[in-house]
């Protein structure tokens, strides 16, 4: 094994948010090696009032030597400063941090542990819910017809090391695996229901080489510069801070590798006949997602996001999934699934009156009518975009 330097770790204190953060791999031989970090923590304690947040969300590894050293400082401070509280912010992804820091509360009740990703973005409950599964399943079936031809234009090749971030129910990973034979494929999502479904389907096909993993796309355990091709489909648009997610995708991508994403512009969904009712409803869809801090109008903004994240050689194209792509019933199924979640759950959650919800539903029904009409046409536009991480 080669002897490279110990994986780097980072220690920061932000006095404005009163937050001390530890990240990376911290495995010192003795406390002396982390003396500077310990004094940063002591300095932080001296400066703050009320609460000091100790952020270990991105702490990938920490040995007992480091744990004891930091714990010691915190416990001593509890004994000297009854005015101070400590909130350790952990992630459910790295479960041992919650367990280990949790013991400090037994010793000093002033120390508490919060799991930040149990409730961390406004639309989480909708997209992580099992009722989202039928939507995803029908969607991927329809988009794949287009994407299998599009992906090579964005640089996908057999034998690549790939990651599908926000993989949902994992159907895209399965299709990519079959069509493009990656050397390795990691598929990450933060929905336990979707991952369980994904693993079940894979097991049913006897597939064992897709690495489904539970994680937060904006704070991933995956190391830097690992993947030749990173995909993230229909997901930038559901984050309240797409730039944070994109930064992570950039980080895990190898220099010279590419990040590929798809996003929608929901207000541009269309259909004939009954175009006006359809258009009204989809404009309302965009507003509804906006209410939950999701931007389902993101598609055409992909180029800007990629450029601002530091990618070059950016490629953007759009395609339209339509009722003519295959069986029109597939298209109708997607719309029916949207109606269920958007009108049946999200609008209800926003507190919309029944008259609104009825009109809102009508647009989806009209879209289905257009899709199934013998002379009708129904469409769902999608933007596929990718950029290269500079060498």
């Amino acid at each position, binding site marked *: 094994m080669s002897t490279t330097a110990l994986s780097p770790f980072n220690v920061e204190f932000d006095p404005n948010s009163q937050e001390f953060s530890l990240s990376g791999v911290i495995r010192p031989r003795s406390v002396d090696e982390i003396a500077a970090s310990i004094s940063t923590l002591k300095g932080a304690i001296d400066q703050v009032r009320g609460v000091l947040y100790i952020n270990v969300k991105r702490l990938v590894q920490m040995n007992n030597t480091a744990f004891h050293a930091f714990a010691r400082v915190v416990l001593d401070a509890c004994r000297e400063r009854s005015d101070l509280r400590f909130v350790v912010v952990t992630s459910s992804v*790295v479960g041992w941090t919650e367990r280990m820091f949790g013991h400090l509360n037994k010793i000093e009740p002033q120390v508490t542990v919060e799991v930040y990703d149990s409730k961390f973005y406004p639309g989480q409950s909708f997209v992580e819910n099992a009722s989202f599964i039928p939507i995803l399943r029908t969607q991927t079936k329809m988009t794949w017809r287009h994407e299998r031809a599009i992906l090579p234009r964005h640089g996908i090749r057999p034998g690549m090391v790939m990651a599908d971030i926000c993989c949902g129910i994992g159907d895209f990973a399965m299709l990519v695996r079959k069509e493009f034979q990656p050397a390795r494929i990691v598929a990450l999502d933060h929905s336990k229901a979707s991952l369980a479904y994904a693993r079940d389907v894979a097991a049913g096909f006897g597939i064992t080489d897709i690495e489904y993993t539970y994680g937060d796309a904006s704070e991933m355990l995956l190391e830097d510069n690992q993947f030749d091709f990173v995909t993230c489909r229909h997901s930038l648009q559901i984050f309240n801070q797409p730039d944070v997610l994109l930064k992570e995708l950039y980080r895990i991508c190898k220099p010279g590798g590419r990040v590929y994403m798809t996003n929608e512009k929901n207000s541009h969904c269309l259909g004939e006949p009954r175009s006006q009712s359809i258009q009204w409803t989809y404009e309302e869809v965009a507003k509804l997602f906006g209410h939950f801090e999701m931007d389902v109008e993101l598609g055409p903004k992909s180029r800007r996001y990629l450029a601002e994240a530091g990618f070059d050689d950016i490629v953007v194209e759009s395609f339209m999934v339509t009722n003519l792509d295959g069986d029109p019933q597939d298209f109708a199924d997607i719309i029916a699934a949207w109606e269920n979640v958007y009108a049946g759950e999200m609008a209800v959650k926003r507190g919309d009156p029944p008259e609104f919800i009825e009109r809102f539903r009508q647009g989806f029904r009209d879209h289905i009518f257009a899709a199934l009409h013998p002379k009708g046409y129904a469409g769902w536009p999608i933007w596929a975009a990718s950029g290269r991480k500079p060498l």
Partner: protein
Amino acid sequence: MNGLENEAADGHFEPLLQVEMAMGTFLSDWHNCDQLSTFMARMISHNRTDPIRHSNFFSFALNELLEVSFRGGSLDGRIGCAVYRHGPMERVKLTFPCPPGQRQFYREAVSKTRRGNAYARYIDAISTDLAPSREAVLLDLAINFDARLRLEESDPPQITIVIDLPLEGIVS
């Protein structure tokens, strides 16, 4: 290294991976603990339900064991580390030369992880010790990783720490 021969006693555990090196080589660089544990964790976790998180947990535990043998290690002899699996459980056998004066220490440290007051001892270690003792490290594994530990001493001066880690259940 006699890990595989001992397997008969270990019932259904299937061998996954075994690494062995001269103590002198191991002790030449502290980073060996980190690198070996990361490497071995990745190798054995690939077919776990959540390979990435399994590997993260396993690496934590293995690194602590390696650090224990690093801190107590002497330059002679060899260190061996073997990983086995049975269902949701991984078994690690870490074998290294142990001077006679330290054997009793390991016997006690390992048996303390199995006593009723293990948790109280662990809490006490965090709240009072300046740096973790090797004993506290083993307690950490028992308490935070639900590990079961025991010692094998059939081949002096080698000793073997045997640790069963039910990580698959904790991770997924």
